């Protein structure tokens, strides 16, 4: 039995639930016979991958769904062996080059050259190009992105790229200008509600409107998350009880408690306690930037006006350092300490004003 997320993933462009205009555009694009490189971007859970797969299906027919996982091997100029797993069908190959860290350039150069140098034998029944899907392009190193530039133009005749990323900020302009950009906005709360209702109907369940709205709110406009949450609720209790809280991931609760601890008391002793908790979160593989954002969101609720701005500035500052640095814990802790200092000063000023 597969999860609802996979089970009810739309398989063709016609069946997509939202952004229908875009789907129609994609369809026209495929029908035109001429297909540009695509750059698909949008927040996670908005349906980027679904759209890519639908487009591929529209291009090549159901053959693209016969996937196989392969291990590819590459050798860097310094004779280091790289191994990366690729997912491919007869018509396309999907790879996440950032898996191999800073050697991603080699993978891109070799992989695309390999794919592009093979011509499709029978062009009467197929398109005369293959598609390379690269995911997480925003995490590619600058060298790898530069390597893409000319490669994209050179192998245009036999190979198209579909790039997939969360934000185009980290994609160099030279690549952006070579692709057709497709923005996939996150579904609105209403759209998520509708999808939840239809999915439940297909499962033979009924979901009250309030419940669907609650799940949609909690998911933060992330459809995948909404569906997973909905399924989890179903496992916990059915029929759905709108009164009941939608269960949240326990790390979020843990994070909230941590924030409360910080706001309650500002002392070195408390800082030590918080450090323990931060380590706990990190060892459970919660990404540090998520921790930072979660903490900020909770902490801001105890601040007012002017102080909020200051805290936000500091959060941005430490998060930037975090991305550049090696160990996340220093920067998280620095932010916590900074917040404590700001908060304490604010409280003391408040007391001084009273007297």
């Amino acid at each position, binding site marked *: 039995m597969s999860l609802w997320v996979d089970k009810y993933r739309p398989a063709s462009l016609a069946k997509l639930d939202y952004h229908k205009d875009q789907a129609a555009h994609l369809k026209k694009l495929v029908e035109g016979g001429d297909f540009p490189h695509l750059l698909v971007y949008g927040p996670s859970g908005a349906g980027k991958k679904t759209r890519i797969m639908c487009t591929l299906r529209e291009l090549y027919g159901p053959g693209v769904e016969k996937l196989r996982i392969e291990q590819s091997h590459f050798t860097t100029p310094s004779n280091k062996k790289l191994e990366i797993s690729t997912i491919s069908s007869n018509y396309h190959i999907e790879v996440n080059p950032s898996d191999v860290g800073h050697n991603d350039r080699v993978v891109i150069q070799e992989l695309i050259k390999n794919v592009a140098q093979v011509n499709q034998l029978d062009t009467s029944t197929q398109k005369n190009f293959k598609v390379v899907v690269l995911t997480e392009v925003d995490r590619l190193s600058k060298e790898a992105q*530069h390597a893409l530039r000319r490669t994209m133009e050179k192998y245009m005749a036999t190979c198209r790229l579909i790039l997939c990323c969360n934000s185009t900020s980290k994609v160099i302009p030279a690549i952006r*200008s070579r692709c057709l950009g497709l923005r996939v906005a996150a579904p609105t709360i209403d759209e998520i509600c509708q999808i939840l209702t239809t999915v439940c109907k297909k499962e033979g369940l009924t979901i009250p409107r309030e419940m669907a709205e609650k799940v949609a709110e909690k998911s933060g406009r992330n459809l995948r998350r909404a569906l997973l949450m909905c399924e989890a609720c179903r496992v916990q209790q059915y029929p759905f009880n709108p009164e009941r809280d939608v269960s949240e991931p326990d790390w979020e609760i843990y994070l909230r408690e941590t924030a409360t601890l910080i706001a309650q008391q500002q002392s070195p002793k408390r800082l030590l306690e918080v450090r323990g908790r931060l380590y706990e979160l990190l060892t459970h593989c919660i990404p540090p930037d998520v921790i930072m954002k979660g903490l900020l969101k909770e902490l801001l609720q105890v601040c007012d006006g002017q102080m909020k701005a200051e805290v936000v500035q500091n959060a941005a500052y430490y998060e930037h350092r975090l991305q550049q640095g090696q160990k996340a814990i220093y920067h998280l802790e620095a932010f916590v300490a900074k917040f404590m200092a700001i908060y304490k000063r604010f409280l003391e000023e408040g007391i001084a004003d009273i007297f």
Partner: protein
Amino acid sequence: MHAFLTGGSSVAVKEKAAAADPPSSSKSQKSKDGKIKIVPWVEKYRPKTVEDVAHQEEVVAVLKKSLAGSDLPNLLFYGPPGTGKTSTILAAARQLFGPELYRERVLELNASDERGINVIREKVKKFAQLTAGRARPDGKPCPPFKIIILDEADSMTKDAQSALRRTMERETKTTRFCLICNYVSRIIEPITSRCAKFRFKPLDDEILSSRLKAICEGEGVEIDDKAVATVLKSSEGDMRKAIMFLQSASRLCGKDSAVSGDIILDIAGVVPEDRLEQLVSTCSSDSYEDLDEAIRGIIMDGFAASQILSQLHDNIVVNENLSDKQKSIICEKMAEVDKSLMDGADEYLQLMALFSTVMNQICHGN
């Protein structure tokens, strides 16, 4: 066997083209001649001769002289993307050597090729050392040198660049180098001093629009002046971007309908003006919660922070409600945020930091 396969494919292409397009459009006629039908317009409308290159008079003058028979210096082309650097040198090389000699006389290396110090030492050196004749096979004269094009030279390592220095001087008899880059500051001084530098200016709107219109005519695309203006605005003097936008939009619209401005905005990923206005007016409300919600919304809709940043900049600079000092504070913060974004910092946090600065300046900054 090979002939059979290619023959088969061209027939298939013809059939497909005939099935997909009504016979009236110019594209399908092209493919009936047996040509490959999928050529991006960017390639199709690349200047074929040096004279075709728009707006770059100095380079064109120098290259024309060299075509007429005089010598060519080592060249260094720099300028923003999409101004015709690569096109110019490719067109010149083609005119100089003709199609037969082109392959043996021109070595094109770019960032997608391996270009470490070893490649410079071996491949480039070896190629540079070959001597070249004075005549083409068909008897026409041609200059007695070869051209090595190093595209995207600013992504070469310092070591590789230094390895070039001596090679460049020693092989002047037989080889000319042409370096192409976006930022001349990333090329080491000894190299720049050995080359004739040419700056490629961003194309101005008139030239862009006349070229775009010519392409539209050639491809049978309907477009009104307003949509052309939108393309110009969102492409910022980058010809390749403009043509890409145009082609993408015409593909998205299909053959029958005219290209509209909205679709171009959508492709370019531009934040709609009213959306941005709304964001700025949220800033003047001095309510942190509203701002938080607005920014979450805009990120959820998939707009890129860098795009918001550049549009906000345009907005702030002409904003009449802010004093010069306030503007400078905001712009300084923008620079900081831009750098942080380039380093891979989180978009939400950076935008929040930026907009809370804006909010602070608007509401409390006097």
